[in-house]
């Protein structure tokens, strides 16, 4: 198995030595953070397998798809509509941006005070360790925050297949028109890439496929309302992370299978932590795989995470695309409607996000909210203080965290989070 993968990685142009190191670190972290958890649902075995094969079997599948004529589109953002890629005979995958890699090389191209997520995306390219990136026929960048949009100018010199999608920053009619125009431009670009024209049937099927995936995650999220929590925040985050990589139909089936198991657990009042464990909602920046730092510390400090108001979480997966469209144009309009609701902090004003945080805190019966900000992520850090103030007005305790992917502040974070958990226990 391993030898076949090695030649596959080599053909993709990966730096095998660096890649071995990455997989070694990842394997150890997974062991320490995930496999050491107690009372995990059996269904998580599927995700353990996915993670163990994240650069192996899944890449082989993608390469097999390519050999059969499909194209691979890589993305860094939840604004890139998976429905359009699927309908045009392409597979959409999230690209690696959740761990520090080749930082010294990255800082030759990007300022030091760039957020960890952007640096990571560059690190995986410069370090030649992301097989998704190297398998992709098209890499989609998007004009979200200033950091990302300027960074894509530099990434464009490192790859020859970068496509940049423009995005609105205001939820106005003009904003909607821009998103619509950009989605049609993206549709044309993917059709050109694959040579497959999107049809009513293919788009309808794609919308159904992606909706099914979202519905499975919605079902999982709703089960997290239970006390005792039937699944850890770490495991639920992992499902949300794998959402971006896995074969959609298989992912949907696997999440639904876990949900069946969780329903039985809830009926038996069985949980991963005792009942009355302090419940925390995480809100803020995305936690891309393998960034498990915050939930690892939180759930090691006597609390359980019950929801993620995040791109890798409910901000990214909430809201279905309407399936009622009868023509490609109607379905494209439905896609625009669905994605235009994403309440990313690049929008101004962005009151919908605050309303969603409050809604989630109530739905998941959170005792407190941890606002997770990546250092130098201006949009979310700017929103952090107003979010904290608004939550405090509603007597919802809030802890603002600003951190990166390194472990150097783990001790300080642990102290803050333990103190926050003590505060929630009263």
């Amino acid at each position, binding site marked *: 198995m391993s030898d076949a993968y090695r030649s596959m990685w080599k053909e993709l142009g990966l730096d095998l030595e660096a890649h071995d190191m990455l997989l070694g670190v990842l394997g150890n972290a997974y062991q320490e953070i995930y496999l050491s958890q107690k009372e995990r649902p059996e269904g998580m075995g599927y995700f353990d397998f996915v993670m163990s094969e994240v650069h192996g079997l899944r890449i082989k599948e993608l390469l097999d798809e390519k050999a059969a004529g499909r194209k691979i589109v890589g993305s860094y953002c939840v604004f890139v509509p998976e429905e359009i890629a699927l309908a045009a005979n392409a597979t959409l995958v999230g690209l690696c941006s959740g761990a520090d890699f080749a930082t010294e090389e990255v800082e030759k191209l990007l300022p030091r005070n760039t957020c960890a997520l952007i640096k990571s995306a560059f690190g995986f390219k410069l370090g030649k360790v992301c097989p998704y990136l190297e398998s992709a026929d098209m890499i989609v960048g998007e004009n979200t925050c200033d950091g990302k949009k300027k960074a894509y100018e530099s990434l464009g010199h490192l790859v020859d297949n970068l496509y940049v999608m423009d995005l609105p920053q205001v939820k106005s009619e003009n904003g909607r028109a821009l998103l619509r125009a950009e989605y049609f431009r993206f549709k044309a670009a993917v059709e050109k890439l694959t040579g497959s024209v999107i049809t009513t049937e293919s788009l309808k099927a794609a919308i159904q496929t992606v909706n099914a995936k979202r519905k499975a995650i919605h079902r999982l999220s709703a089960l997290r309302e239970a006390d005792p929590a039937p699944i850890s925040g770490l495991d639920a985050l992992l499902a949300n992370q794998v959402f971006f990589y896995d074969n959609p139909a298989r992912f949907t089936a696997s999440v639904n299978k876990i949900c069946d198991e969780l329903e039985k657990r809830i009926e038996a009042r069985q949980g991963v932590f005792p009942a009355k464990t302090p419940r925390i909602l995480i809100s803020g920046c995305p936690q891309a795989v393998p960034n498990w730092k915050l939930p690892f510390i939180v759930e090691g400090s*006597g609390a359980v995470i019950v929801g993620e108001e995040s791109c890798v979480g409910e901000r990214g997966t909430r809201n279905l695309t309407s399936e009622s469209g009868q023509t490609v144009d109607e379905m494209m309009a439905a896609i625009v409607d669905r994605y235009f609701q994403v309440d990313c902090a690049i929008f101004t004003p962005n009151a919908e996000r605050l309303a969603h945080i409050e809604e989630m805190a109530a739905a998941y019966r959170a005792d407190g909210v941890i606002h997770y900000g990546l250092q130098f992520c201006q949009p979310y850090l700017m929103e952090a203080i107003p979010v904290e103030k608004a939550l*405090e007005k509603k007597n919802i*305790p809030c802890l603002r965290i600003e951190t990166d992917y390194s472990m150097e*502040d783990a*001790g*300080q974070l*642990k*102290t*803050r989070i*333990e*103190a926050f958990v*003590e*505060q929630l226990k*009263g």
Partner: protein
Amino acid sequence: MERRFAGIDIGSRTIELVVVDGKGRVVKSLKADTGFDPMAEARRLMDGVGYDGIMATGYGRNLFEIAFEAPTVTEIKAHARGARAFFAQATSVLDIGGQDSKAIALFANGKVKKFEMNDRCAAGTGKFLEIMARTLGFDIEAFGDEALRAEKETAISSMCTVFAESEVTSLIAKGQDRREIALGVHASVMRRVAAMLQRAAPEGDVVFTGGVANNGCLRSLLAQKLGRKVRHSPQAQFAGALGAALIAMEGKGR
């Protein structure tokens, strides 16, 4: 024999051990430098001290938890409890320790309402004062009193300890009065912690805990800036250990 409870605060600079009786009265307070082997220092401090239960706090609490199988509590909760032991009505607590500083707001019943910490950098910590005292040639114990003797302040603009040290060195070279520089150094720390305190705990008298609370200059600058009363106990440095001991006694620790 009456039951006794101990609290040990393993800080970056010092370790404090406090023992209370079943009514929460302090029966013993001990202190040692943390040094480079905190657990050995802790063991030495605990040697011959009798107690029925011990609770650890401070940045070394997790090491202690493993070495002595003792429960732990964070510095935040421990200092909050200690501050309430000094002043029963306290609702705003400021702790300046060796490597971090924290502002804590309490509900009227003493529970933690909100807190903020500066833990990423030495500015606004005891370490900053210590380095500046050394650069200016003052004994750390007398640093505050010396600064209070200055008639005016020489402003220090750098927040960063490393830059501030070079700034102070160049001010000395220019022949500036070192007491005036000392006052500037205190004002710099004060501004930093005052801003944190106003955000996290903006109301009521401030109870100042931790070793730096003994610095009279900082207390008076803070009171002036905040327009709030700044209170401290002569035992302020033992607040964390006392809080942990009381929490152990009350059986509220985890």
